[in-house]
Every structure is written in structure tokens, then in C-alpha cells.
């Protein structure tokens, strides 16, 4: 990997040249010879990997979709075709080299194992397909550690910080990226496993006991956790930064979180977000500022394209587009032109960050997930497309909403009847219920273009139980309970 200090100051043109160079080498030396899936693609399309000039030639390759990788009952080991692995013929060659090596075959073998042998595995959450394993070799673990260090550098953390990692434990990226980041930067940490593992009370005790300066959270759990802590008048005066991951962060939620922290004695707390997907195998963060200047990427470990989701054509800098990810110089599971399904409203920016001055490409932070554009039969005219993403900023940022859940169901539970959208709300104390109901109804229509069938007010505990705050890996904010036709 490149020196981050230098890389983040290089002019974009130089960075692009470096990407061209790295991509050529990666395709010729790793992807074409050792990736069964992409070798097949190169052969089927009669593409000559040696004629690959750089990033501009990526368009000759087809996109990779989630369904290309996710295991199915018929093909449970599909993901293996995306793992960079020298085949038996090549292994033989290395074995032979090892035997021949005058200076000790063990070292040669160790190097190959470091580079290619899977050592660590993450899974996708499996919301839209079966959980898919993504493997890291020991070399990749060095990459994710370095990426973690860069992430904390972007967040302006130092060795003096104390981190409570409250991401729920799972073989998922969020927990492990926080772990590798803290470990490589030398930040004292508690990798708690979240409320499900340690219990919310114990976790609050740990924050106080350790005098944590930074807490990493899933946004929904953070709000719940800090609300409880504020109610118990905990002393969180040491907390300076909250790092979010695993989900999008609506702007209104940042304000709510800051207010809660200030209530518990924190001075000028900052709430910062990360963006990642399992397929990218590392996370990117935004630099500390009141306004978000986007997620700072690492151009030596990936190439980010921004495309029109409908046509697949590139969009211009700063224009809304779907994020397409290509791995650069990784080993283990490597994807080229992967359609993330995440749409960046402000696209990608190549200008230096106005806040921190880093020159790396930035993905703008207003993200929406394509999979949450759902088709509904709300009227007799079937197939209305509703953007459920819009519930997040609305509900998370609403000052009078404490907890919430959206349920999509069929009227009378009949698979052939119309769809219904119900809203379960735990209101803030002392709120006029009728006024809140009317306000929510208007805002939901404004933001999603559909009217909720019912707005049901429940005590916070009941809504928390519905969303599975301490029992689920990710809380269930939008549930689709429509029976299958």
C-alpha cells in the first residue's frame, strides 16, 4: 500500500495514474491468472488482459451483482470463484520453487501462504440474499489494518484516545474494522460486542470506568443507549466522538445524539459516520466538521465508479449515481465492478476536501439503498414504487419521535389484497399525540409520497421489542410482513 500521508496530498491526476498502473498489474498478475470467475469472463469476452490500459478500460468488463456471488441451494460454493487462488498447477510451481530455493524453501512457502491462504472470514448480513462469505488472507489483514489506521486518521483520533467498540459482535465488517483500526493505531479499546453481548448497563459502566473518548455504534442502538444513559444521569463527559457504521446516518439523528451527550457533560461532541459494504472489505469515513464533506476513500485499495443505475453509464463528478466498487491489489475475495446498490445523491468528488485538504476521492454522504425502493400495491393501480429510505431521516431526525418502526403488510393478511403501511411510534414525553399524528402524516406524504394507513402509538419498550434493539444484530426498522403470493 502507498504511504497514506503522501497519497492523501497527491494531485488527483497523479493518483489516477497510480490507479491505472496498479489496476494493470493487478489484472495481469492476480485477477486473470488466479480468479476463476473473472478469468472466465476475460476468456468468454475474448478480452486480452495484457491490453488493459487502466481504469478507463474497466467499462469493457460487465458489472458484478450480488446474485453472482451469493450462494444458492444449487450452487452453495459460488463465492469461491471470486477468491484469488493459485490453482494446483501454480501451487506445484511454487512447491517446486520452494524445494529449489537455495536460501530456504520455508520462507517462500510462508510468503505464498501470507499472500493467498484465507485466514479470516466476514459474511454479508444476508438481508437480500444468503449470507456470503468474504475471505481475507494474512496480507489482506495488513490492508484492513492500514485502512483502519487511515480511517482513524481521517476521524482525527490519536493513540491517546480510548475506544469502546459497541458494534454488535458478528463476523461482519463493522465490528472487525473497528477492532483492526484500534489495534493498528494503538488506541486502548474495549471490543464489547454490543448490548446483546455485554448488556446495555454493563456497557454504560464500561464507558464511565474507562473514561472512553470515542464510542463506535450502529446509529439506532446509539440513540437508544445514550437515551438510557442520559435518563440514568451517567457521566459521559469524557466522550468526544461518536463513530457510526453499519447504517446510514440521517442528519437529524446527529443533532439528537449531540444533545444527549452534552446533557451528560460532553463538550462539543462530534458525530461522524463511516460508509462500507462487506464487499469493499474496509470502511471509509468523513473528516470531523459540522458539515459533512463525504467519505474519504483510499485510491490505492479500490476504484470507485459512479453510474446511472438505469443505464449503467458513468455520471459526471458530483452527479447522483450508484456506487460501483472495484478491488485494487487485494487478495482473498476480490470483486470487479461490483454494483453496491447504494446511491450517492451528490456522487463522487475528486477535488481536495475543503475541510481537511486531503485529495483522495470522496463519496458524498447522502446515501440511499436501492433495495429499499420497494414496489407496493397501494391502490388498484399496482406497482407504485415507494422509497422507504426516506423514513430514516424523517423518523430518526424527528424531535418528538423516540423510537419507531414501519410495517408493510397486506390488508386482512390476504396476499391478493392491497398493501398497507403502518407506523409504530414511541413519542417523546409530554407530546400532544394528535398533533404529532397529524404532523407525521403530512411529513410521510411529503417525503415518501404515500400516506400511512395507521399511526400507532406505543410505549418505548414495546417499540424497542418490535425492532429487536438488544436481540437482533441490526434493529428491524422497516419490516415487510406481506405474505408470499
Amino acid at each position, binding site marked *: 500500500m502507498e504511504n497514506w500521508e503522501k497519497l492523501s496530498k497527491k494531485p488527483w491526476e497523479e493518483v489516477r495514474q497510480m490507479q491505472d498502473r496498479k489496476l494493470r498489474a493487478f489484472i495481469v498478475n492476480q485477477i486473470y491468472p488466479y480468479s476463476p470467475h473473472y478469468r472466465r469472463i476475460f476468456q468468454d469476452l475474448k478480452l486480452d488482459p495484457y491490453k488493459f490500459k487502466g481504469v478507463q478500460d474497466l467499462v469493457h468488463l460487465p458489472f458484478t451483482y450480488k446474485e453472482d456471488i451469493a*450462494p444458492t441451494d444449487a450452487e*452453495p*460454493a459460488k463465492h469461491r470463484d471470486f477468491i484469488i487462488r493459485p490453482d494446483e498447477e501454480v501451487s506445484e510451481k511454487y512447491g517446486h520453487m520452494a524445494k529449489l530455493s537455495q536460501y530456504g524453501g520455508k520462507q517462500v512457502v510462508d510468503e505464498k*501462504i*501470507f499472500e493467498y*491462504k*484465507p*485466514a*479470516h*472470514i466476514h459474511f454479508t448480513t444476508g438481508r437480500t440474499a444468503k*449470507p456470503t*462469505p468474504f*475471505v481475507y488472507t*494474512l496480507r489482506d*489483514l495488513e490492508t484492513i489494518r492500514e485502512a483502519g489506521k487511515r480511517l482513524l486518521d481521517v476521524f482525527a483520533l490519536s*493513540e491517546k484516545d*480510548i475506544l469502546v467498540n459497541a458494534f454488535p*459482535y*458478528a*463476523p461482519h465488517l463493522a465490528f472487525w474494522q473497528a477492532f483492526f483500526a484500534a*489495534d493498528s493505531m*494503538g488506541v*486502548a*479499546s*474495549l*471490543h*464489547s*460486542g454490543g448490548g*446483546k*453481548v*455485554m*448488556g446495555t448497563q*454493563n456497557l454504560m*459502566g*464500561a464507558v*464511565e*470506568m*474507562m*473514561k472512553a473518548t470515542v464510542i463506535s455504534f450502529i446509529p439506532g442502538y446509539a440513540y437508544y443507549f445514550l437515551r438510557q444513559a442520559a435518563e440514568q444521569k451517567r457521566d459521559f463527559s469524557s466522550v468526544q466522538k461518536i463513530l457510526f457504521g453499519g447504517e446510514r446516518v440521517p442528519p437529524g439523528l446527529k443533532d439528537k445524539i449531540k444533545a444527549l451527550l452534552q446533557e451528560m457533560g460532553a463538550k462539543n461532541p462530534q458525530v461522524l459516520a463511516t460508509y462500507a459494504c462487506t464487499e469493499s472489505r474496509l470502511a471509509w469515513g468523513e473528516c470531523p466538521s459540522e458539515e459533512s464533506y463525504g467519505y474519504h476513500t483510499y485510491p490505492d485499495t479500490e476504484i470507485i465508479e459512479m453510474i446511472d443505475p438505469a443505464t449503467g453509464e458513468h455520471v459526471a463528478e458530483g452527479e447522483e449515481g450508484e456506487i460501483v466498487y472495484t478491488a485494487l491489489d487485494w487478495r482473498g475475495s476480490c470483486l470487479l465492478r461490483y454494483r453496491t446498490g447504494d446511491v450517492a445523491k451528490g456522487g463522487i468528488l475528486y477535488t481536495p476536501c475543503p475541510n481537511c485538504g486531503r485529495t483522495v476521492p470522496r463519496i458524498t454522504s447522502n446515501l440511499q439503498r436501492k433495495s429499499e425502493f420497494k414496489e407496493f400495491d397501494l391502490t388498484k393501480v399496482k406497482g407504485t414504487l415507494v422509497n422507504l429510505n426516506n423514513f430514516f431521516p424523517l423518523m430518526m431526525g424527528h424531535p418528538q419521535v423516540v423510537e419507531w418502526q414501519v410495517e408493510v403488510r397486506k390488508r386482512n393478511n390476504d396476499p391478493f389484497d392491497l398493501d398497507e403501511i403502518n407506523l409504530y411510534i414511541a413519542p417523546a414525553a409530554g407530546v400532544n399525540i394528535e398533533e404529532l399524528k397529524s404532523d407525521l402524516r403530512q411529513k410521510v406524504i411529503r417525503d415518501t409520497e404515500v400516506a400511512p394507513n395507521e399511526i400507532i402509538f406505543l410505549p418505548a419498550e414495546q417499540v424497542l421489542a418490535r425492532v429487536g434493539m438488544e436481540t437482533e444484530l441490526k434493529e428491524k426498522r422497516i419490516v415487510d410482513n406481506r405474505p408470499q403470493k
Partner: protein
Amino acid sequence: MENFAKICRMTPEQIKQFQAQQMQDFFAGEVAVRHPFYRDSWRETGIPRSVADLQKQPFTVKSDLLSQPDNLESYRRYVLEVPEQNASPKSGGLFARFKGKQAGEIVPKKYATNQMLFSSGRTGKITPYVYSVADIENLGETGLRMMEILGITRDDTIVNAMSYAPNLSFWQVYYGGLKLGSTVLQSGGGRILGTEKILTAMENMEASTLFTTPGYAEFLLQSAVHFKLKFPNLNKLIVGYGPVPLAQVKRLEVLLHLVGSPDGQVKRVYFLNEAKAAWAECSPGSGYHFYPDQAFLELDSVAGIEGRGELILTNLNVFGSCVVRFRTGDLAESITYEPCPVCKRPLPRIIGEIERFNDYKNLDGVQGRTVNLSSLYSLLAAEPGVLLWQAVLLGEPAQLRIDTAFLDKNQAAELSESLQAKLSEALGVKLTVKPSSYKELVDRLGFEKYPVEQRIMTSAGSGK
């Protein structure tokens, strides 16, 4: 830490001398200088210079390590202080002395906190234990030693199903696997990934080695048998973080046979959070091999319990939290410095089943008479007709009830009766055996809810 191969070439006498020297150096060079509690306490009594001196020291107990409500940072009294950043190095050889400040900065790094682990999960009072940068590096080394003793190599594919918690069991396997370079799935256990996903992963990965708790291992393999899954590659099942009597090892071997691994081996590991290392047996019953450069263990007799003593731990060469003469609450038969009869390594070993002192209960109110509830693990593991069980203590003085799921449900009444007689005689106490359904017990034991299943319940409300 010392070169492991070198330690393994020492004679028992050399091991004892080596350990005594390690202790002397560590006490004088680190504990007496940087440990807030022992430094103060040794100012009056002097630094222990020998094993005999050590044995005159008072015990440290778990409550000493807890934070006090009025001073949340009081746990730091048992954490070695980080030397000043620009302090000139006391050790480190020529390089350190010549390089002055620059080398001085290298020294504190190993004392810096890397991770905070806790010795209890959701329910108990959490006891913080600080692992420094050097402790984490050592965790890799002790993990590698553990793998070597267990016969696990880089070619093994491992599923780490130790329940995730910020404690030693999960992280020891993680760092051991990483240092070894094996392929490892860090599943987090049943309550994180769920049994179905763990079984699927084991099948897809063709796992050869599984690390988990003994109770969960049994449940997982029973589930595999039920769903007719086969794991022909699974040749090593490593269990720990809960009592594992030899009878249960046999039982797990039978289950391995039933899932298609007739030559599968079951081995045991003893995880003690405060020890900052796990100690493994090379073969069941050979004793838990511990490391003379990393821990010193004593056995202290316990009133009313014959043939066993409480393990007393003294950390050696640790740099975060550190304890001297710590009462572990775990009982064993003896400690030996004789070379292992199986693997021939000259490492000292803990002999006998590890039992919890807390499992010795007074049930009938007769003063001084205790019943060893730990022995239920062994007695019930030896019953092939018993699928699952949970002991429930009801009322005051406590009445013992064993809720049991039998393999042959039709014979449950008769089996309960005979088991009741057998257990009453073995424990010397009146008890009842109540047939329960497998499903109900799975739920109550909480294999997918708790870090370790709730095998012995003291709450009267828990039973039906």
C-alpha cells in the same frame, strides 16, 4: 516470552529454577516498581525473592479487582503503570542505552493498554482486566503454544465457536489461529451466529477443528445427528470455558463418531481470564500444561474439601493488569512438575478435573456439609440415556431437582426413578429427577442466549 522450544528442552529441575528466576526478575523489575497496590504493600514487607517468600504474601481476591462505586478507576490499582514517555530505559541492552530518548519511547509501548477484557458477561459483576500491547503479543505466542500442544497445524481449518464476549476464551483462539496462519471462522458461538449457520459453515468450510464450550459442543453435535449432517473432516474438537469431566469427553467422542468422524479427538483447554493465557491438555487427563515463564500456580487447601485445592495464580511477565497470589475460585487435584507422560514436554501441569468452588453447596442446612454439584457433570455425562439436564436449587435450605430430557421418552418415568436413586447415593443428598422435554431444556439452558449454558440454576423461579 521465552523461546518455547527451549523451555520444552529443560529438565523439571531447570524449569523450577527458570520459573523462580522469572518471578524474581519480574517482581523486582516490574511489580515492585510499577504496580500501585503491591508496590505499596511490599514497601513494608519487602519484595518476595523466592517461592517461600511468595507463599507468605496475602491472597488477592476477585473483589479487589473490581471498581469501587465511588471510584470507578480503582481497578487501576492492579494495573502496571506506564513509565514516563522519556524515561531512560532500565533494560533493553546497548541499543536502548545508546539511542537514549528514542529507545526510551519504545519501552512504554509494551505497557500501553491495547484491550480491556472482562471476566464476566451479562449477568455477573464485570471485572475489568487490562491487556497491554505486550500482553496481546504474548496472547499470540501462548495461542501458538496452545495450538502446538493440541496438535493443530496451519493446515487445519478452524471454526471458533467460543461464545463472543470480551474475555479470554474467544480472543485466545483468535490470536492463536492468526499467529498459526490457519483459516479460521470467528463465529462468536451459537448466540451470535445461531446453530444452523454454524453447522452450515462447518459443512461448507470442511472444518477440521472446532473450538467451543463443552455444553454447546454437545448440543451442536446432537443437532447435527438429528439433521443427519456429516462432518468427516472434523477430527479435533477442543472444549473449554466450562467443566469438562472425562466422562463428557467420552460422550463427545461418541457424538463425533455419529457425525462421521470416528477418529475424531476431543481435547480440553482451561481458560482463566486473569492468567492471560489458556492452558491445554495434549491428551484428555494428561493435565493442563501451563507456561513457567508466564504463570506461577499454587494449590491452597480448602476446608471441608478433601483431595482438592484452590488454584492460586501469580502472573509472570504481564504488563497490564497483574495479580500476585490470586484466588481463582477453581479447584484441582494437584500441580506437577514431572514431564508429561503423553507428550513428554517438561511443562508443569494442573492435574485433575477443574471444578468451581462455588459449585460446592450446603444443601441440607447441616453446618460444614457440602455437596459437590460439579460432580453432576461427570455423573450425568456417564448416563447414555440422558440427553440434556439442568440442576435447579429450590427454596432454603435448598432442595435439588434435576430436570432431565431422556433419549427414550417412553421410559422417562422409570429412568427418572433409577437415576434419582443413583444420583442421591452418589451425592449423599436427597434430590428429585424430573423428566423434561428436550425443547424446553434447550430453551432454559440458553445455548443461543448465554455465553455458557445455565446448567446449575440457583433461582427458585427458574424451574417449573
